[in-house]
């Protein structure tokens, strides 16, 4: 979450709760709502590393609130992150490891494993269909995220089919 928070702070200084709200507004139901505690812990670490700084703002009748802003060092880290290409979403696959190692363990039938995994992926796909139905049609960011997840799952299923053809 570090870089996500840096990006939000690049737009304007904000306090922790505003950052939580901004995340929810941008990603909608496609992103698990961040817990406010996690946000404050992350901001504390960013502050310790010199990437953000906090100022106390006085509020009438209430305790001071901490408003965070991006430092030059933070800006540099953020620029590097945005500017460089990103690792592929899945370069290692735990199921594939299981599948390859299964015969050595002598405890799993690969056909059964593949069938079980296919049903699991289809169950996830059904969840994504429902999530897409529930998502506000105007929230393009959230819908694109869901569609991306669907395309990845489709690729996983196609790969499963290839595994079944070759290993059965």
């Amino acid at each position: 979450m570090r870089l996500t928070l840096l990006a939000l702070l690049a737009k304007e200084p904000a306090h922790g709760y505003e950052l939580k709200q901004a995340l929810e507004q941008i990603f909608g139901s496609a992103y698990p709502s961040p817990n406010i505690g996690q946000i404050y812990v992350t901001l504390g670490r960013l502050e310790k590393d010199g990437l953000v700084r906090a100022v106390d703002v006085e509020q009438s009748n209430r305790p001071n609130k901490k408003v965070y802003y991006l430092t030059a060092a933070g800006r540099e880290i953020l620029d590097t992150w945005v500017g460089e290409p990103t690792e592929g979403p899945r370069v290692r696959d735990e199921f594939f490891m299981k599948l390859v190692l299964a015969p050595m363990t002598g405890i799993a039938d690969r056909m059964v494993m593949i069938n079980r995994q296919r049903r699991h992926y289809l169950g996830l796909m059904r969840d994504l269909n429902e999530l897409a139905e529930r998502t506000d049609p105007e929230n393009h960011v959230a819908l694109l995220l869901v569609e991306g997840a669907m395309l990845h799952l489709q690729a996983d299923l196609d790969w499963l089919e290839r595994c079944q053809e070759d290993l059965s």
Partner: protein
Amino acid sequence: MTPSVAPVVETVNLVKIYQDGGVPVPAVRGVDLRVSPGEFVAVMGPSGSGKSTLVHMIGGLETRTSGEIWLDGQRADTLNESAWALLRRRRIGFVFQFFNLVANMTVADNVELPALLAGASTREARRRREYLLGELGLTARADAAPSQLAGGEQQRVALARALANEPSLLLADEPTGNLDSRNTRDVLRLLGEVHREGQAIILVTHDARVASLADRVVSLLDGQIVDDGGTGLVRRRPKGSAGDVVELRG
């Protein structure tokens, strides 16, 4: 013994062997499949696994080599061609990858035709056509000729046509193969409605979004069923939260 409702489709040890220059090529090797009225079954599997052949045989478009096919409790594989055609017209709707729309008829007439052939009144056929074209976002295209439509539109017209006579069984072979994601959504919504109205669906697909809506997924490999079961069982997340379905890094 209590009488139970006959399955909408039942195949018994169904086999199809093609001949390739005198060499027998098995495509379907002993499939036992039972589909209850109103059930939505997706058929998946690699290309060459026999999915299309299976569905074509159930619809009477290809002859079986051996085995039995029963539709609504009636033995169908022993029928002659005209009796098959009659059965098809009344009870089965088809959507295939190639749309086969009648070129010199409008979209509206293409969709009304099967209902009229099955004996519906003109008014009933029109009402059904208007409903189906509306659901598929094609109302404005009703008077167009099929050749004036884009591929995705033609495919949706083919689906509307397949549903025109409210068949008790819809057979579909990759019905979303040519559709972009928004049109796929329209088709999925209509399939869901058709399903809720109690029509059975057997649908061959590679598209996991489509398959995930089915009650049951049958997986074929080398002409045999290797898995047959529900898809909903693995769902663990409570409603209202995307959980870790979508994971962002950073």
